[in-house]
């Protein structure tokens, strides 16, 4: 179980992690809202239904008390009638002389709506007086009636009977009325002596009915009245019950104490409220079906549900909107950054949406611009570093050469060859002047060739004209520019590798020509040459520095400088065959005065 929960939680978390911010926001907000509202709805409905039940109970109790009061006062009124008849009419009268009728009639008329008859019987059940009807039915036997016997048995009490048909008086209209009989023992006076009798007050059923009817209990509840033994006195469906078409739990209700009870009758769960009517022992029973308590529960439920759903709908709508409002700018920001990543330069960073996202966009865009600046700086620094390295390399050449040259000068001076020494020093001076070229790295091709010529002059003197030099430039190359000091290292190499060991007259030629947009300078010697693969490997960066006599480094250095300055399509090409000679071809862009500018600027930041 625990592992399952954990697994589920993990899966959810993973899924959650994968969801878009919009989904996360909208779903979680909506979920929280729904849970909250459902919780609220449930707790409200729970409170409501609990409250409703209480309310119904209270209401029923109140209604029952009211009815009880009305019934009590009604019964008291009837008892008062009985009292009045007894104490005002019968007690003082002597049957032999006095007529009871006016008194009885007066009381009957007074209570005509509630009474069916008032009658007085003597102990043997003979009628003494009655109103409004006075003819006994031939079949009537009052002394056998329950009300008569009850009155004779307990003479100190008033007795209420169960409902029955009034069957004593002859009625020419053939009316059979339901009555509740109120009977009591009375003392009759006849010629001074007393005898026992029974006073009967028949209450019309309508009186009781009127008290109990039109009582509104909640949820189509109703009220009925039973006597102590459970016999029905009033029920809204009394006749149906009498006819056996309806059933009521009245016999069980007779056993209930006052208060609220629950019962299940005919598969109906219902709330039963019982209240005992004073004196008579009658019980008022209120019945409220539990089913659908609290009004139309289904309606209320549906209405509540629709309210809930509507709020969820609104929440969802709002959440979707809000989350879109938040996440859309973020997404666009992300998009822009992706493009940046892909290397596009002119990306505009959007700055929109919520404040935080706006700030984020702003920060990112300022970060991007800072980054660009930093990157440019780095490039500059790198270049400068490179250049300084090169300069170091350049300066590495010079002392070596200078030393050799000066050595030669010394040697020539000692040998008294002053002419040559002067020429040599002059060449050296010119060489250096061009080398410096006021710090420029790009110089006119003519100067470079001049530089090469001077260098060759010096070398020729040193090597005693072991070789001849031809330096030629095609006319179309006039006015072109080149990197400075690129020909000299190659010449140096040619002399060392090509000429020192060569026998016979070596020829070293330098030609400059134009090929399309390119400027080609070729240095050719007829020295020992080398195998093509060796030649090819000379320029290889990976090749370990084999410091042979001269410096292969020099050639490679030139190659690198050209490529660094102009790009990989430029540089050196070495063509060689053993015993044939070597040609080094320098390829440069054909730069005129105007084309030189960017390179110059770069060189001098």
């Amino acid at each position, binding site marked *: 179980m625990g592992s399952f929960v954990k697994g589920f939680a993990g899966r959810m978390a993973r899924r959650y992690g994968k969801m*878009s911010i*919009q*989904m996360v926001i*909208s779903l979680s907000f*909506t979920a929280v809202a729904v849970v909250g509202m459902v919780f609220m709805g449930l707790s409200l409905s729970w409170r409501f239904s609990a409250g409703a039940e209480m309310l119904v109970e209270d209401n029923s109790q109140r209604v029952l008390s009211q009815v009880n009061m009305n019934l009590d006062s009604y019964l008291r009124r009837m008892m008062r009638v009985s009292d009045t008849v007894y104490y005002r009419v019968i007690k003082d009268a002597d049957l032999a002389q006095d007529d009871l009728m006016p008194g009885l009639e007066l009381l009957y008329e007074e209570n005509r709506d509630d009474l069916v008859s008032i009658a007085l019987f003597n102990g043997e059940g003979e009628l003494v007086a009655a109103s409004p009807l006075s003819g006994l*039915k*031939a*079949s009537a036997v009052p002394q056998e009636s329950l009300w008569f016997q009850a009155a004779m048995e307990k003479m100190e009490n008033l007795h209420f009977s*169960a*409902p*029955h*048909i009034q*069957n004593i008086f002859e009625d020419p209209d*053939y*009316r*059979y009325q*339901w009555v509740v009989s109120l009977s009591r023992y009375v003392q009759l006076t006849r010629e001074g002596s007393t005898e026992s009798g029974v006073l009967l007050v028949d209450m019309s*059923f309508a009186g009781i*009915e009127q008290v109990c*009817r039109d009582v509104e209990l909640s949820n189509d509840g109703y009220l009925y009245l039973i006597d102590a033994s459970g016999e029905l006195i*009033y029920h*809204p469906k*009394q*006749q*149906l019950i*009498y*006819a*056996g*078409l309806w059933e009521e739990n009245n016999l069980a209700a007779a056993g209930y104490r006052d208060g609220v009870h629950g019962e299940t009758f005919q598969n109906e769960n219902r709330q039963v409220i019982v209240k005992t009517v004073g004196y008579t022992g009658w019980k008022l029973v209120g019945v409220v079906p539990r089913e659908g308590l609290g009004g139309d529960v*289904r*309606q209320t439920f*549906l*209405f509540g*549900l*629709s309210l809930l*759903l*509507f709020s*969820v*709908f609104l929440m*969802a*709508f709002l959440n*979707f909107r809000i989350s879109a409002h938040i996440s859309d700018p973020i997404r666009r920001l992300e998009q822009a950054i992706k493009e940046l990543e892909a290397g596009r330069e002119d990306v505009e960073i959007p700055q929109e949406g919520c404040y935080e996202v706006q700030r984020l966009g702003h920060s990112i865009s300022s970060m991007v611009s800072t980054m660009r600046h930093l990157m440019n700086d780095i490039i500059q620094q790198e270049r400068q570093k490179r250049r300084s390295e090169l300069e170091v390399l350049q300066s590495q050449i010079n002392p070596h050469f200078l030393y050799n040259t000066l050595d030669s000068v010394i040697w020539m001076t000692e040998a008294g060859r002053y002419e040559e020494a002067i020429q040599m020093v002059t060449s050296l001076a010119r060489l250096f002047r061009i080398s410096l070229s006021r710090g420029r790295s790009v110089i006119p091709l003519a100067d470079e060739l001049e530089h090469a010529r001077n260098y060759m002059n010096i070398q020729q003197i040193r090597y005693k004209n072991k070789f001849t030099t031809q330096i030629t430039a095609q006319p179309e190359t006039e006015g072109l520019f080149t990197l400075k000091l690129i020909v000299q290292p190659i010449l140096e190499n040619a002399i060392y590798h090509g000429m020192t060991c060569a026998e016979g007259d070596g020829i070293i030629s330098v030609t400059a020509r134009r090929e399309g947009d390119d400027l080609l300078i070729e240095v050719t010697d007829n020295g020992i040459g080398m195998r093509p693969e060796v030649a090819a490997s000379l320029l290889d960066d990976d090749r370990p520095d084999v410091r042979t006599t001269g410096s292969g480094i020099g050639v490679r250095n030139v190659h690198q400088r050209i490529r660094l300055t102009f790009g990989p399509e430029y540089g050196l090409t070495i063509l060689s065959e053993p015993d044939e000679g070597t040609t080094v071809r320098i390829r440069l862009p054909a730069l005129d005065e105007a084309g030189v500018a960017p390179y110059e600027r770069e060189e001098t930041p």
Partner: protein
Amino acid sequence: MRQKRNVVIQLTILVALGTAVILTLVLPQLTITRTSTPPVELSVILRDSDSTLWSNARLGMEQAAGELRAELRFLTLSSANDSAEQADLIAREAEGGADVMVVVPADSGQPLATEQLPVVTMESWAEGAAVTVSPDNEALGQELAQCALEDWAGSPVLLIQTAPASAGVSQRLAAARQTLEEAGVLVEAAECPVEELVSVLPDLLKQTGAGQVMVFEPAATQRAAEYKENVGLSQMLYGVGVTSRIAAYLERETVTAVAAWSDFAAGYLAVEGAVHAAQRKPYQADPLPFTVLRGEDIYEPDNQKLLFPVTN
């Protein structure tokens, strides 16, 4: 793609929620309109001309009509057992838009001429009746005859048929006759319309020398009893039904015994059955329970409850 999917998901959720909201709002309306169907129009057509004979049944009918939302129309014939007039009335009511009818058939042999209009009969079954509310007529005749046998003193028993076309009344009479004959009693049978009962009775009694007279419908019972009381006949009278007048005659022993059932219940059940029939719901009507009552029994608590309606 993901964007699009999100939009679709959200749209689906919103549409589903919206539909649910609308549904929950509309649903109660639907149930309300379902409950507020117009009341069932119910016509009650008797075979008597005197509607007071049916006043207890009418009370039951009104109670049922109130509970089951029916509108009652109470129609009587201008002369009792006029089957032609009754057929007319039935046709007219059907035309007049009644949803269902309760008929006490004047002539059971004549099918109830109603197309698709359910009819509930009382007292006797008739062709085309969806439900019949009546006591078990044969058992009723037998028990009444049994009761007459208890008092039998040897003289012939006169059975008077006042509604020969009514199957219910005929069944009662036939059953009583059979029971009596099986017991070896001399049975005299006569037939006459209710209205003429009073004028025919003296001759019949003289001719047959009957000591006991039996009639099988409330109208006849009431008339015979009235006549007996007015003229002071000595023959014992046995009848059917309890109106308040018959109860009074019973009590005075003008009528020796009657077979009685609760008219209130009969009326109630008839209307209940009719409303069910109008709504095309099945309805099972058991035979009404009846008792044979003598004068001294009518105030038994159970009999009181059955015979005299507590009007509320």
